[in-house]
């Protein structure tokens, strides 16, 4: 009996040893340690990890801690500026780094970030922008031993300042095909960038030149209003080459450089700890001097918690989160709640929800059908009854508010609107011509698997059935397959996508998506392949002119014409709505409301 018990105990011990072996082995140089505090030496960098879990609520009179949920399930995908492509990653990056230029998150005004700049057109008609970088920003990191933010020193013991070299390094790293950056394409406007990124161009040919430690010159192929924006995007944040690639006194960390303990940055906040799938803590950077666009933070720490929207909102209601999005499911209740309704804010969010047509697919290859379907969507009813977030019915694609986008004030009748009568008439015309009845039409409407998209699809399906008598077939696919399908020769007749801004210019919307080879209009060897499957020379020309035009008013006009072709004349897509963000904020939070998906917490304050 005893021996058997021993065997089982032994088996359990062996089992736990196997699992125990999973942890990185501590180096033997570690001296005797306090039993409670776990110290793991990872390559000579001792990280003391206190065993107590993070405080759920900020201490009353202690440091100001902002509890902020990500609003989506799962981990932050990456903290590498060269690799980031999603809003949660970018949110952290924007607070831990600052670009050459910095966008005001509320006004979309471009302000100096790490640099001031001047622009000129060179002989070849290219735009050359020279950036004068601040010389007072040191690289910093969080030091676990002293529980404070310290300045990074080089191998000689000097404080490392952020220099033009660091920026240039990032630009080239982003463009390096080996990096596989999903967002490198935004930099393709830089001379030599596209060639390096996607063909056999050389890095030396990329027109990002370091003139001196604090001066950087970037040459863009064409002049465009949005070039400085692009230079300030996260794909161009300075990154610490010595951590990534190593130097005399640092081991190379490769893609791991973003992890707790290795991460170095220079922005208003510094990453302290990243517990994957759980939370990421950022602390105030005491070495950030404060600039016009990026002031010294008032709050001491941001506890950025990875929570799906419903649990995040529950935490908000429980008083553990200071801000939250409102899940659609809770909207009615929140609006009726006397306290919560006072805390609600509905602001614009620079995204557009649209349905695309495969203009080469049966039935929808006729523009009258497409226009009829578009006109039969009662966008306001959808918003009022299903979406409930105060969204705006979209009449065209480029969301108003972007630079060079038409607005409802200037172009109230641009694009397409709900018009059931005309929709019926258009469809009838088509039916008469082809000798069909509405219920014979076979249309598939595909969306990626998601409750929200499903609701919209179901509603629109019903609207089409009610107005036009067409019953479409709803099919959903999971994201990875869906993207493949939508951008293949098998693109379904109707599909959905959304678009959010990278930089606030209509170009980023209509041109980046719908020019031949654009994101939603992919082409292979110049031939449309999937997506909307659309070629329109006139629209192409309008978009090209709009890009290089320098007169803002003329640009708006050009884009308005292109939009009219896109959504009405050719009715390639159905613009459905323009996004809003619906948030609740605790009354003690002083905050700004970002319109581009990011918040600048350095402008926030807590007054508990």
């Amino acid at each position, binding site marked *: 009996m005893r021996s058997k018990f021993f065997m089982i105990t032994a088996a359990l011990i062996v089992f736990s040893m196997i699992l125990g072996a999973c942890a990185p082995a501590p180096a033997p140089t570690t001296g005797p340690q306090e039993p409670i505090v776990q110290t793991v030496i990872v390559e000579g960098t001792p990280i003391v990890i206190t065993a107590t879990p993070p405080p759920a609520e900020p201490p009353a009179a202690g440091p100001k801690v902002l509890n902020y949920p990500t609003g989506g399930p799962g981990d932050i995908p990456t903290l590498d500026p060269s690799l980031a492509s999603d809003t949660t990653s970018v949110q952290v990056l924007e607070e831990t780094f600052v670009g050459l230029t910095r966008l005001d998150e509320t006004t979309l005004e471009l302000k100096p970030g790490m640099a001031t700049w001047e622009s000129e057109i060179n002989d070849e008609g290219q735009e050359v922008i020279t950036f004068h970088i601040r010389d007072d920003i040191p690289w910093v990191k969080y030091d676990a031993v002293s529980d404070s933010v310290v300045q990074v020193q080089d191998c000689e013991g000097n404080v490392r300042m952020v220099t033009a070299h660091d920026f240039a390094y990032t630009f080239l790293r982003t463009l390096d095909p080996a990096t596989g950056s999903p967002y490198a394409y935004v930099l393709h406007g830089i001379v030599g960038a596209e060639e390096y990124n996607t063909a056999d161009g050389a890095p030396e040919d990329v027109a990002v030149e370091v003139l001196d430690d604090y001066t950087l010159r970037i040459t863009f192929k064409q002049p465009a209003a949005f070039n400085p924006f692009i230079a300030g995007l996260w794909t161009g944040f300075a990154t610490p080459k010595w951590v990534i690639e190593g130097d005399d006194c640092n081991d190379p960390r490769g893609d791991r450089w973003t992890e707790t303990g290795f991460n170095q940055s220079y922005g208003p906040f510094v990453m302290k700890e990243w517990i994957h799938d759980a939370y990421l803590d950022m602390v105030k950077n005491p070495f950030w001097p404060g600039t016009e666009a990026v002031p010294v933070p008032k709050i001491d720490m941001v506890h950025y918690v990875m929570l799906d929207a419903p649990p995040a909102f529950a935490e908000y209601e429980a008083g553990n989160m200071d801000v939250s999005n409102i899940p659609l499911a*809770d909207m009615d209740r929140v609006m009726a709640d006397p306290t919560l309704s006072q805390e609600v804010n509905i602001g614009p969010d620079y995204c557009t929800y649209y349905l695309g047509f495969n203009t080469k697919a049966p039935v929808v290859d006729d523009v009258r059908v497409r226009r009829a379907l578009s006109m039969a969507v009662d966008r306001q009813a959808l918003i009022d009854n299903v979406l409930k977030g105060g969204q705006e019915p979209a009449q065209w694609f480029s969301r108003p508010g972007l630079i060079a986008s038409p607005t409802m004030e200037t172009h109230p009748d641009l694009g397409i609107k709900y018009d059931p009568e005309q929709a019926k008439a258009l469809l009838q015309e088509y039916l008469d011509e082809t000798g069909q009845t509405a219920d014979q039409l076979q249309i598939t409407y595909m969306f990626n698997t998601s409750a929200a998209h499903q609701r919209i699809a*179901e509603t629109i*399906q019903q609207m089409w059935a009610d107005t036009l008598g067409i019953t479409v077939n709803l099919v959903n696919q999971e994201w990875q397959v869906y993207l493949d399908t939508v951008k293949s020769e098998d693109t379904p007749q109707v599909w959905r996508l959304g678009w959010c801004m990278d930089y606030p210019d209509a170009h980023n919307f209509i041109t980046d998506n719908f020019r031949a080879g654009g994101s939603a209009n992919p082409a292979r060897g110049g031939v449309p392949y999937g997506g909307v499957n659309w070629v329109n020379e006139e629209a192409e020309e309008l978009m090209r002119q709009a890009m290089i035009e320098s007169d803002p008013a003329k640009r708006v006009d050009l884009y308005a014409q292109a939009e009219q072709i896109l959504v009405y004349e050719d009715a390639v897509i159905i613009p459905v709505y323009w996004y809003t963000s619906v948030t609740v904020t605790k009354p003690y939070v002083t905050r700004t409301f970002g319109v581009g998906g990011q918040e600048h917490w350095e402008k926030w304050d807590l007054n508990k």
Partner: protein
Amino acid sequence: MGQTTLQTDSDPQGHDGAAVQASPVTIDVNQFGAGGKPLHVKSESALQDAMRRLVRNKAAVVGGSIIIILYVVMILADVIAPYPYAKQTLVHQNSVPQWLLNVFPTMQPYAQVVNDYILGADYVGRDLFSRIVYGSRVSLIVAIIGPLISLIIGVTYGSISGFFGGKVDNIMMRIVDVLYAFPSILFIILLMAFFRSTFARPDPGTFTYYVSQLDNAMGGMLFIFIGIGMTAWMTMARLTRGQVLSVREKEFVEAARALGASNNRIMFRHILPNIVGPLVVSETLAIPGYISTEAFLSFIGLGVNPPTPSWGSMISEGAQMIRTYPNQAVFPALALAITMFAFNFLGDGLRDALDPRLRGTQ
């Protein structure tokens, strides 16, 4: 004296009624007093015996009745449901009838009262009750197809393995062992992803096209069934094998072999009829598992195609609303729970009824 009257029957069976050992005795109790009166012996197969015992089990009867009602409701969905399941009245979205406000008073401040829908309407104004009625299709068909597929594959596989034994058995069971090490739900997800995308938009006229047409016609249920069936048969195969092995050693099988019966005859005439009971019980008890698998698939978005309702998808949609409009989660969940209750009770009852140790007892 009197001996003659009592000894009329020289053959020994004359007086005895029937079994001594616990068996459903239906004999003339007062046989000794009644002299040579012929006895009423009702012959009863094991199935009848099981049925009778099942009928005496109140919980099982209730469960069985509920299941019958559910299936009737499913078949008569068009008659029973007041609205088509996809009929939206956008303005009535999330509306509730007055009586529900008394049940869930928290809804008072914001709920829109529309009495047209007895259980309320969902987020696009579709009648919840109608959707529950139509939604029963998925769960209840899963409840049939799941066991069917797993029985067909599992019993065939398990019987071959158990009957031939030896090396064949060894190899076949190792295969099952390894497949067992697969997380079945992940296997289903992989399969579903595979089916969903492979059969998404095939060329007309091909086999995949017809399969996808069939799936579309079933509102996307086909692949769920296949996925569930392909993972569920292993339990059945193991059980079947075990049963076959135990019955194979029974003397009556030996007797049949001594008579020169062929393998087929032994399998189909002697072994299979004797293992059907435990297999049926096991499948009945597995049905709730199939139903909840479907619900889980719906939750992660691999369920039926909208707007086809299924309880699983309704629950996962409703669950997000549980604070705001609890009715949208509670009623489909209730429907699911009742169905699972019913199948569980029926399964328990069947198990008791078919348990040979309990044969002939209460």
